């Protein structure tokens, strides 16, 4: 069967099980958009290529399947660099197809030409420039294989226009041929045994669960491991939901804006069990002062993470689920030989911290609306399995702190790259992947203005996401740093609460727009929004601009120096 390169590309995507892709056509990718008309693949037409990338990312987070985006060459390709970098930092499986100028004119500064493969090399797990239409099925198979196996990540396939128009004899390869790519899935048995011994000897152990738990679909395995060992768990920003917040051994988020107990338990532990986490600077604070008395077991599928920041006592390279399941067996064997260790004293200490230093804010009756209150109300009034997306900044930290996560894959945010504007498109992608779920985005007013145009996409495609803007009229996190570390010299952080008018803007994009000023209106307005299922909803919550994110560990400080909410008149508050 003879096919054009473009037809072969679409057929290959169908055979890889792609059901939906996010994109925007243009000159160089025109040939590929033609066979798309006859394809089973749903295409979501975005308003900006960055939106396509983040939607693919949100889709991947929510479904576990690779997100697919397709855009044209030149400026379209550069517009999708940010989502690629974002997905690379957060290990999100994505396949991005870009058009390229004809192969025959590459290097001549042709119209809308740029070196897409060169530009995206540092922000993709791998990328390909197709130079022969016969390679298309093989490269597409390899692209999906690389994106979804090992440590997942984004990949990019660049297809020149003349290659898309070439004809080729169709085939579908049996497998991939990548001699240099063989991820280690199974942990080394001796390392697992060593780890089990350390686990059974520890008296103050803590599990440091990272995003790798979710990538490896290891939430159930983690639960079994916790229930066997009785060891408390901190869930990083990328792992919120990987272990349920209502579980008595869940300590919540550690790090720069983590809660006191999660941070301090890691400082005082004698055994840190890192599962799919990477010792990010936002978690460790000053590395030299992080978890000073702890031995470290580090489970990660990426060998380069072992010893990158902290040298582990027992490194285990392997898939988190696989390794945790093996650890469960090995620890059970240790327990039957030596008995189960007594952790009562340690758990008692943790309980005391939880009582003494809880998360804290004051919502005064009739006072200014507190952002934390909005998030608590939102949680109270939405279904258990609601998916929550967020942008980057104060609202993101409050969302992670005050939302109660009951299920894995219900939290979608930009952790590593910290991409403002992530929330709206990511929420849209999540809703496309999980139409059965309610999807809310908590966004900041600064973030919202970066990608709000994608709500036009959402209205047009009937994707009813709901957006809660915590509008404090500032680039709030930057303001917080200027207040605390730059002597209240506020440089270029004021945005205005009324410009733009978020309600009118929402309505102009075909959404329902609502505004809330007082705490009393929060609940009823959320309930109204929950009733709307035929279009997106945007609520402009006017929140108190003075509110800051606490606790806080200042950048470069030791995690021993936790700054608590100043209103907390308690020992340890500084």
């Amino acid at each position, binding site marked *: 069967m003879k096919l054009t390169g473009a037809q072969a590309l679409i057929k290959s995507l169908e055979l890889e099980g792609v059901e939906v892709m996010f994109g925007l056509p243009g000159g160089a990718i025109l040939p590929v958009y033609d066979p798309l008309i006859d394809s089973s693949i749903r295409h979501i037409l975005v308003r900006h290529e960055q939106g396509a990338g983040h939607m693919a990312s949100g889709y991947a987070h929510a479904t576990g399947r690779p997100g697919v985006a397709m855009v044209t060459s030149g400026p379209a390709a550069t517009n999708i660099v940010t989502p690629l970098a974002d997905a690379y930092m957060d290990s999100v499986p994505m396949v991005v197809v870009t058009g390229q100028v004809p192969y025959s004119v590459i290097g001549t500064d042709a119209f809308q030409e740029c070196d897409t*493969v*060169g530009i995206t*090399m*540092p922000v993709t*797990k*791998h990328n390909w*420039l197709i*130079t022969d239409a016969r390679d298309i099925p093989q490269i597409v198979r390899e692209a999906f294989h*690389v994106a979804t196996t090992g440590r997942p990540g984004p990949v990019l396939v660049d297809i020149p226009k003349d290659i898309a128009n070439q004809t080729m004899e169709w085939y579908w390869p049996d497998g991939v041929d*990548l*001699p*240099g*790519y063989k991820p*280690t899935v199974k942990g*080394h048995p001796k*390392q697992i045994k060593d780890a089990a011994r350390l686990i059974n000897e520890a008296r103050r152990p803590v599990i440091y669960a990272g995003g790798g738990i979710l990538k490896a679909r290891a939430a159930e395995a983690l639960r079994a491991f916790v229930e066997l060992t009785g060891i408390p768990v901190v869930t990083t920003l990328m792992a919120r939901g990987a272990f349920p917040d209502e579980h008595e051994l869940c300590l919540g988020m550690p790090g720069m804006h983590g809660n006191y107990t999660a941070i301090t338990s890691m400082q005082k532990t004698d055994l840190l069990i890192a599962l799919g986490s990477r010792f990010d600077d936002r978690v460790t604070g000053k590395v030299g002062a992080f978890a000073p008395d702890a031995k470290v077991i580090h489970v990660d599928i*990426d*060998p*380069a993470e*072992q*010893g*990158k920041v902290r040298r582990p006592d027992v*490194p*285990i*390279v392997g898939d988190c689920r696989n390794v945790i399941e093996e650890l469960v067996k090995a620890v059970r064997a240790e327990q039957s030989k030596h008995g189960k260790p007594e952790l009562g004293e340690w758990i008692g200490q943790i309980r005391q911290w939880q009582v003494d230093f809880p998360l804290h804010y004051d919502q005064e009756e009739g006072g200014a609306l507190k952002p934390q209150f909005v998030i608590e109300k939102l949680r109270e009034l939405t279904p258990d399995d609601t998916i929550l997306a967020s942008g980057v900044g104060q609202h993101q930290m409050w969302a992670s702190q005050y939302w109660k996560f009951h299920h894995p894959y219900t939290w979608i945010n930009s952790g590593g790259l910290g991409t403002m504007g992530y929330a709206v498109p990511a929420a849209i992608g999540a809703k496309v992947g999980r139409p059965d779920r309610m999807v809310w985005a908590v966004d900041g007013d600064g973030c919202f203005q970066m990608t709000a145009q994608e709500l036009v996409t959402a209205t047009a495609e009937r994707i009813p996401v709901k957006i809660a803007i915590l509008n404090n009229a500032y680039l709030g996190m930057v303001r917080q740093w200027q207040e605390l570390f730059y002597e209240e010299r506020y440089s270029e952080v004021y945005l205005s609460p009324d410009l733009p008018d978020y309600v009118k803007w929402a309505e102009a994009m075909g959404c329902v727009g609502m505004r809330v000023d007082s705490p009393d209106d929060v609940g009823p307005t959320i309930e109204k929004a929950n009733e709307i299922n035929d279009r997106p909803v945007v609520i402009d919550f006017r929140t108190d601009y003075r509110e800051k994110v606490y606790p806080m560990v200042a950048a470069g400080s030791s995690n021993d120096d936790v700054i608590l909410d100043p209103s907390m008149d308690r020992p340890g508050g500084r």
Partner: protein
Amino acid sequence: MNPRHHILAVLVENKAGVLTRVAALFSRRGFNIVSLAVSPTEDERFSRMTIVVDAEESPLEQIVKQLNKLIPVIKISEIAHDQGVERELMLVTVKASADARSQVTDLTAIFEAKIVDVGYESLTIMVAGDPEKLDAFSDLVRPFGIVEAQRTGRIALPKLARQPVKLRSVKTARA
């Protein structure tokens, strides 16, 4: 021999753009390449790169692990200085007018080098050997005046097994 210099023998797929991926990774992670030599191997699907890196032991481990993550990189071995045979090639044009010419040709003979081009006022000489030998030759001809010099990157292969070869494959390190 600079103890911070490590020789990596990197087997890669012989495809377009692989050199860029390897070189870009070094600069991205903040490492310096001292010298680099690339050529196809006896099996033309693969190329071998000999990379001399300037790094301490622990960052070296990280760069090797990051290199291993590149899809076209198949295998990386570190060749310790006492475990390998290292060679470089140098072409050097030296001023050698009539009165100095015989001294330069003497040195060429002592170093088992070869004169590959002759001009009225200068000679171009090819020297091959381990890096120290090339350094020594450069030092000795410098007083006559070096017009131009070009060295290839270092190439290296592990010493043959009179005792078992100690190739340190970093990929399998402990894990």
